[in-house]
């Protein structure tokens, strides 16, 4: 039966097309040959599952992990690999269970925290997910901005989500994607002044900031702050005017100028000061 499984897996690997990943296919074929010869060696099954995992072949990866576990239930790295495969296959509760098993033995395993957080998010358990992300973020020396975004997208109060983004901005610097997400959240909460503060940071790091200044104006219009909106639009026009000639003449600059002219024309009269 095991030989048949190995053969089927080998055949499916071949069917996936030798051109798909020439080096990986060679490695998988070699591992399959070794498995044929020594089918009781769990490291071979595990090594092949890693190759499948690398290429998103979740079904084959899981089959090899099952075999690894049958041969050696405590095989190192097995639960973490299972957690990843199960998460990818949509079996979120089982994925979380596996990740928690890893964490019961290695409480500082950032990857396990991350997988547990993602599984929890899929299960709708935002609180557990947030804890998982926070733990992973705390353990990583240089967490990617994507992790802060994932946490900020959880169904949590806006204040908590913004605090998480603020932590990201302080840890990894003024990453554009974090600033924009924070801006959107501030606006969704109707916190205009905080939104303007966010947009000012975006403006500061953009060499061509007219579109962001225009957005600043648009936000102010929505808030009924017409006089300030006019100032923002005028600042946007001024920033276009100082561009080098070859950029000033570009179609996108022309488009932006037209948008600004239209926005200024449509401004309602400002209330008396």
């Amino acid at each position, binding site marked *: 039966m095991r030989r048949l499984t190995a053969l089927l897996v080998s055949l499916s690997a071949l069917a996936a097309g030798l*051109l798909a*990943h020439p080096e990986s296919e060679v490695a998988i074929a070699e591992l399959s040959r070794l498995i044929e010869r020594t089918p009781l060696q769990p490291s071979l099954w595990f090594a092949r599952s890693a190759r499948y995992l690398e290429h998103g072949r979740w079904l084959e990866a899981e089959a090899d992990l099952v075999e690894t576990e049958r041969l050696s239930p405590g095989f190192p790295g097995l639960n973490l690999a299972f957690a990843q495969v199960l998460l990818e296959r949509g079996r979120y509760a089982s994925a979380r269970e596996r990740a928690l098993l890893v964490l019961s033995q290695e409480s500082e395993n950032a990857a396990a925290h991350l997988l547990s957080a993602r599984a929890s998010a899929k299960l709708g358990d935002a609180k557990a997910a947030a804890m998982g992300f926070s733990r992973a973020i705390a353990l990583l020396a240089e967490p990617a901005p994507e992790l802060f975004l994932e946490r900020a997208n959880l169904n949590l109060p806006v204040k908590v989500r913004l605090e998480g983004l603020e932590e990201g901005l302080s840890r*990894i610097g003024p*990453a554009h994607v974090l600033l924009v997400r924070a801006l959107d959240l501030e606006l969704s909460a109707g916190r205009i002044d905080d939104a303007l503060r966010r947009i000012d940071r975006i403006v500061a790091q*953009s060499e061509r900031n007219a579109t962001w200044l225009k957005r600043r104006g648009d936000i102010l219009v929505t808030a009924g702050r017409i006089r300030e909106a006019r100032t923002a639009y005028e600042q946007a026009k001024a920033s276009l005017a100082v561009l080098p000639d070859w950029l000033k003449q570009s179609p996108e600059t022309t488009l932006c100028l037209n948008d600004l002219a239209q926005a200024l024309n449509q401004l309602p009269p400002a209330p008396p000061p």
Partner: protein
Amino acid sequence: MTLITRALCLLLSSFLAGSALHGATSLVRGPYLQSATPTSMVIRWRTDATEPSQIRFGTEKDNLARTASSAGIHSEHVVQLSNLTPGTRYFYAIGLPGKGANQAGPLLGPISSFVTPPLAGPAKATRIWVLGDPGTKDEVQMAVRDVYTRFTGSRPTDLWLMLGDNAYPDGTDADYQKAVFDMYPDYLRSAPLWPALGNHDARHASSITQSGVYYSIFTLPTRGQAGGVASGTEAYYSFDYANIHFVCLDSHDSDRSRSGAMMQWLLADLSSTQREWIIAFFHHPTYTKGTHDSDSDKDSDGRMNDMRAIFLPVLEDAGVDLVLTGHSHVYERSWLLDGHYGKSQTFDASRHVKQPGDGRETGGGVYRKPRKRTANAGEVSVVTGNAGHASSKPVPLNHPAMVVSLNEPGSSVVDVDGFRLDFTFLNDKGEKRDWFTLIKE
């Protein structure tokens, strides 16, 4: 042990390590230059013993009067030189601590030098060396390197790009030692290296956790400090050099969706730059019929499709001029193209070729683009994943978007001077096998 006793022990061990070991300390790798800006340079190196991290530097070779250091003692050293003058040659060496508190110790390794990038904006003649998939550690990689060395002669390399798969087979620290640090010591210490992540590098690196060998070895700009918009990650980043804006994407391990963070950052970064040229580089090619097939949905798990269908439209819309990729161990160079985002059978020269011809002054005429930034004015895509090996077997090399397709090892050279860009491909025998010119007018 109380906290104070522990602190005292730590202090004592630091002192002993610093004073006793440096007599026998030797360099394991580097120095190598990273994250160059007009006013700063990161210098990294590794020693076989822990030492304080110190660089002595100055604008005269025999007067390294300034010092820069980082706190603590390390074997993996990272020191940033700041307050430098743009476009200036600096001499530097690794300094070891002296015997007395205020005494300078001996130097570790030779005195090297680099030139800081010029201020971003104004044009300056710039030479860029491009290596795709170099890390085979063998004689082919060496031959490709030596050919470039002879080609460039006394003309300095301003910066060099690695397009991923920088160290075979697995991107381990040992792989990097042989394939990069032992292979290019002179270039590493004199010109900043800007790498992209390849699939082999990713075997020992993770973009989401920013961990593993690739991310440990390189120091890349995450806060927009070298120009461009802050990405917050070393997986994808941008930087300026004179009038050129470079964009490095992670085609392997970061989210490649339209709504992903990399795309959001890219849109902001491209719409922010004021540089006259835009060069994008990443690992997976948009078009290839070499050792990989960009028409296959399964090949490389669809990454080539993603880069072509999702990222290329954004790059072209922003007026990108040159797209450099590797992964396929061949050399393939396109026409001046725009708008070809499907499989090769959908390629229609009448719609997708902005300007026919080979782009050569001596042939069908150089490629010309308007000087004003114009969306979709055309870009040239180059697959040059052959700095370590070409395919040992025949490959189709029949992608219709390509003007030149060659199954031979080599590396590429980009020279930018004002509104003129000259591109050259050199094979491992020292032959100039392809070239073209792009002029903005």
